[in-house]
Every structure is written in C-alpha cells, then in structure tokens.
C-alpha cells in the first residue's frame, strides 16, 4: 500500500522549480510595489485599485466555475454583502472609537461573505449543472430585491456611505489619499492570490476538480460531492466578501447595485474571457475587462454591445479564454514549430481587422441613425471622425465587412492547415499537444 502511495505521489519539486515558483510571487509583489512609482497619476492609481479588486473577485468566482464546475449567476451577492458589512463595520468602529485599523476591515467583509455563503450555500449547492445556475440566479434576485425592502440596513436606492479616514491610524496612514488605498488593495490582492493558489493545491482543491469532472466517482471514493461543492462555495464567498469590502472602502459607499445581476454578469464575463482553465486566467480577464470597460466607454457610446459581442466570440471560438489561446501554443514553442503558424496569423490579421473595422463602421452608422438621428452626422468613434450620412462611408463599411469576411475565411482555413502541420510535428517529437 505504501509502495503504491509512494509511486503515485508526484516527485518532490527540484530546487530550481521551487525557486521559479517562489520567484514568481516575489516578482508579483515587486511589480505591485513599483507600479505606482511608474504610473503615479490619480487616474491610473484608481484603475489599478479597481483591477486589484476585480482580480480577487474573479479568482473567487473561478473557485466555483473553473475548479468546481459550478456556473453561478449570483456571485455578486457575497461581494455585495461583504461590502455592506464592511461599511457598517467602519461606521460602528469610528462611532465607538474602537481601536481597529482600516486594513483589517476586508477581513470582516470576507467573514460576512463566508457567513452568508455558509447560510445560502447548502441549499444552492444541492444540485450542480444547469439547476445550480438557475438556483444561483434565483437566490441572487432574492437578495438583490430584499436589499430594496430592508431599507435600514441597505440604505434603499441611495445606499450606505462612510468615511474611511475616521478609523484608528497606524503609522500615520489615514487612508485618505488614493495611493494608500492602492497599497491596501495591492497587499490584499497578493494575500488573496496566494491563498487561493494554495487552495487549489490542497486535497480539497483536488476533490473540487474531481466533483467537477465526475461526481459519481467522487461518491465511489467516499466523498459527498454536495459537501465538496458546499465547501468550495464557502471559500468563494469568503474571497468575494474580501473583494466587496475593498470595493466599498475604495468608493466609501455600498449600494444595491453591488449585489445585482449586472455585477454578477461582469465577474462572469471577466473570468470567462480570461480563461477558466488556468489559475492565471481570471487575473488576465480581470485586467482585460476592467481596462476594456474603462477604455471602451470613452471611445464609443455602445461599448456594452461590443462587450457582449466579444464575450460571445470568446464563447464560440476560444472557450479556453485568452489564457487558453496562449497556452495552446506552449507545445509548439517547445517543439520549435511556432514559426510555422505565425506567418499565417499575420496574413489572417489583415482581412480580419478589415472585417472588424467594417462591422464597427456599420454599427456606429446605424447607431447614429437610430439613437440620435437629428444630430450632426459627422460622428467620432474609436478616435476616428467620419460622416455617417455619406454613401461613401456606407459603401466602405459594406465592402470592408463582406470583402473582409470572404478573404478572412480563406486565411482562417490556412491557419487551420498550418496549425495541424505544426502540432503534428510537435506530436512526432513526443510533446503532448
């Protein structure tokens, strides 16, 4: 028996691998410390704080979706409740002059998220799959609607606000300036990232994967998949609560939008676009989606439409998300056949970009005629000005869209051939693709 266990256990990491592993976390910490030194404007600090919060929230969501296979449409409930509890805690502590500093507050939010996940999770995780998705949606709606009824606690439409600087000061940090909030968020992001990564390495994390892939076998080896799902749900609630508390500290307000379907949808978008198959996926997704939602809203009126279309495109063509796409190329890099696919990528890029440009041009023109037809037709989108009333623009849009599609389709076939060729060679060299 012990022989089997010794054989089945993975080999202990070599010192080089260990160095690489710990080096990665140290590098992440250094990047987090140095970021504000390079980009020191107030706007970028706010953006970094939002990204940090989004990273924690997305990673907590991936404990459910990626690791346990639970698609939740109501994860924002635990984020929002963590936020509300944090706001109330700050208000109570500052009114009573309790000796508790601000950096501890996210822990209170996390415990609130954990408590509510423990309360609601048992019912929610009774079923997995589609039923779980619908239940999480129902529970999410229940809490979000209740928030508007329980006005004393949730503050109705306006929400509850606070003043984060009134708490006990440690080392003269008042947490008024954004830079201090940035460091608070960065520290918690690092702690939460390490904790959640460690969670994937525990036996529980492995059982979560098993409950995702084959719940029947989990039962055979003596575990109850319901309990495994429930524990994963509680951990997800804990980290979502931390993220919510940080958001509440950042904005100094919590309102019912924190709990709502839109927030749940955003975290789902971020996690899935980043890629649910890898630990780093939600981090990439959180950065990408936060930047995109901040950037796109300046560029075009209908940014949410593009956002939805990007999501659909990822679901249809890249179910592994951005990280999944990149990781697909790892065997090719190892086999040295990456150069065989890159040229066909570059060739395909031209007509594909033309097609997308034509599509955007058509959408913006249509939007001009439906949303504000009486305005000046010289509109500006994505930093480009054009005359939406001119037939030349319409013709250009049509040619780019249809011509681009027809040419692009041929180049996509080429990519497929190059891909098969490159992976085939990699497989011959004995590298699993």
């Amino acid at each position: 028996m012990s022989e089997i266990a010794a054989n089945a256990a993975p080999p202990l990491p070599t010192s080089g691998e260990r160095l690489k592993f710990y080096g990665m976390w140290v590098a992440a910490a250094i990047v987090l410390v140095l970021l504000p030194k390079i980009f020191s404007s107030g706007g970028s600090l706010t953006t970094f704080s939002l990204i940090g919060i989004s990273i924690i929230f997305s990673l907590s969501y991936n404990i459910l979706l990626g690791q346990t296979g639970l698609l939740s449409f109501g994860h924002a409930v635990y984020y929002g409740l963590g936020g509300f509890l944090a706001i109330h805690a700050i208000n109570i502590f500052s009114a009573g002059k309790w000796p508790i500093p601000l950096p501890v507050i996210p822990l209170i939010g996390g415990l609130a998220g954990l408590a509510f996940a423990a309360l609601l999770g048992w019912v929610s995780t009774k079923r997995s799959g589609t039923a779980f998705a619908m239940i999480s949606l129902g529970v999410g709606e229940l809490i979000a609607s209740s928030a508007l009824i329980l006005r004393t606690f949730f503050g109705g439409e306006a929400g509850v606000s606070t003043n984060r600087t009134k708490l006990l000061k440690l080392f003269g940090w008042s947490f008024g300036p954004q830079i201090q909030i940035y460091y608070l968020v960065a520290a918690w992001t690092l702690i939460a990232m390490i904790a959640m990564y460690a969670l994937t390495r525990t036996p529980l994390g492995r059982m979560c994967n098993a409950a995702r892939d084959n719940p029947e076998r989990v039962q055979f080896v003596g575990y109850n998949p319901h309990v495994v799902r429930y524990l994963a749900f509680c951990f997800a609630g804990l980290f979502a609560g931390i993220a919510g508390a940080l958001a509440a500290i950042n904005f100094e307000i919590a309102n019912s939008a924190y709990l709502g379907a839109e927030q749940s949808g955003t975290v789902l978008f971020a996690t899935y676009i980043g890629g649910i198959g890898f630990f780093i996926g939600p981090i990439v997704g959180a950065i990408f989606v936060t930047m995109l939602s901040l950037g796109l809203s300046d560029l075009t009126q209908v940014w949410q439409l593009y956002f939805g279309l990007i999501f659909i495109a990822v679901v249809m063509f890249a179910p592994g998300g951005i990280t999944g796409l990149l990781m697909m190329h790892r065997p090719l890099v190892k086999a040295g056949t990456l150069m065989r696919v890159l040229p066909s990528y570059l060739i395909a890029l031209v007509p594909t970009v033309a097609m997308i440009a034509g599509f955007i041009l058509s959408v913006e023109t249509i939007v001009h005629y439906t949303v504000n037809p009486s305005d000046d037709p010289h509109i500006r989108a994505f930093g480009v000005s054009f005359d939406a009333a001119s037939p030349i623009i319409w013709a250009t849009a049509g040619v780019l869209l249809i011509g681009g599609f027809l040419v692009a389709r041929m180049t996509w076939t080429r990519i497929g051939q190059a891909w098969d060729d490159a992976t085939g060679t990699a497989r011959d060299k004995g590298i699993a693709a």
Partner: protein
Amino acid sequence: MLELIVISTLNGVLFGMLLFLMASGLTVIFSMLGVLNFAHASFYMLGAFFGFQISLWFGFWPALLIAPLLAGAIGAGVERFGLRHVHRNGHVAELLFTFGLAFVIEEVVQIIWGRSPVDYRVPAVLDFPAFTIFSTNYPAYKMFMLLMSIAIFIGLLLVLKKTRVGLIVQAALTHPHMVGHLGHNVGRIFMLVFGVGTALAAVAGVIAGPALVTQSNMAGLLGPILFVVVVVGGLGSLPGAFVASLLIGLVQTFAVSMNGSLSGAFGPLSSAYGSTWLADIWDVTIAQIAPIIPYMLLVLVLIFRPMGLLGKRDT
C-alpha cells in the same frame, strides 16, 4: 373581498398562462437540446418590440402573425449558426452563449428603440370593457389575452398528443438520445424546436406588450421569474411547468393586491425597535414583497423537493 378574489384569480390565471407560453418553449428546448435558453425572455421582448413596430406599419393583427414568425426565424438562426457550433464545448458554454446573447439583444433593443417605454397600444377593436363585475370594468383585451393563451395551450396540447411531430418531441423529453438513434434528423428537429419555442415566447410578447410595459428591461425583469418557473416545476417537465406557471401567476397576483403586514396583524412594534431593521420586516406589506415571493418559493421547493414539483430527471 369577493371582488378581489374574482379579479385576482382572473389576472393570476392570465399571468400564469402567459408564463406558460414561455415556459413551455423553454422546457421543450431544454429537454431536447439540454441547454437552458437564457435568452428566452429576450425573445419575448423581441416579440413585443416587433409587434409594436409592425402594428405601427400594418396594424395589430398582421403584427400578431408576423412578429412571432420573425422572432422564431431569428431563434432558428441562432440555433443553426450559433448554438450548434458551441455545442461541442459543453453545456456550460451553451448556457454562457445564450447569456451573452441575452445581453446583446438587450443592447440592440436599447439602440433601436431607446431605454424608455414605447407607446404600444391596445388595438381599438378590443379597447372596451368586456364585462363589469362588482363595479370593476374588466378590459376586453385581457379577455383576449386569456383566450389567446388558452387557445395556444390547447393547440400545443393537440400537436403534442395527436401528431407525429408531437410524438417525437414527447419522446425527446424523456429519451433525447434514443430519438437521435432512431434516425430522425436531429439537427433539423433542434432548429425547428428552437424556432417554435422562441416564436411562442414572441407570441406572449406581442399580446402582453400592450397590457404590460414594453421597455428594454422587460426581459431582465421577467427572465429570472421564468427560470424560477421551470426549476420549481422540475427541469424538463412540461406538466410541472404548467403547474408552476399557474402557481406563480396566482401567488404573485394575489400578493400584489394584499396590503397586510405584520404590524397590521399584531399591532405596531414597540418604539424601542421603531428605527431598527426589525421595523423594516415588521412594517413591510405583502404587496411590497410580491416581487421576491417567487424566489422564496424557489428556495422552499429546493429545500423540500430539490427535483422540483413534478421533475424526475436529474441534470
């Protein structure tokens, strides 16, 4: 009191039948394709907006015919060119695809028709009180809605029970794989079922649009309740969906018309608790909590009967 009961029952059955028009399509699609169409309520919304636009151009009656056909065609197209490709990536990807679709449809509707409600009116032929009970005029349009949804219900029942197509659909409800093995063109059946299901949702939209508010958030408001209906009824069970539709329709309609609260029944809370959150629960009326009653029902059903009222299949 009697007046309240009669009117609320009528309205509740009406709302329940409307819910069933949508839930039936959703259930059949779920049973056959294994995918819960998150965008189902969006097709209901598309039906309402198409109905509004076409009734502006050609009048209400052509709209009642064309709008569902149009929405059904879009639905079939979504299945053929979207869902079918996503299918190989698994059920989560399919559900996410329809989720993204719901998001995009809402954005498109907002772009074309704006965020504020459109002026979708009851057709003049039906704009009169049908009858008067206890001094309340019951509008003829509501009677039309009721008859219409009952007619479709009976039609659906006949098709399901008496025709060959219905036989295949019924078989697919319980043994979807066997139907494929028996050599039916599964792809085409899927497309057809998706098209018909979304068209039924669109019919509900066309007839409900003038009575309720036709606005770009109507899918977001109704969607969650629709999913509550199919989960409470039991995923994949058509009779369950029918029972749950009527149940939720009646419960919600009755709740809206009731003004009772805990403080009304037991007297106000002592002033010591007057401004705490307990007062919120104590003073809230049943009418105010009407929107959350379906979700409370969902949680209760899940605790005591996780499969749903009439559900059998575990998913």
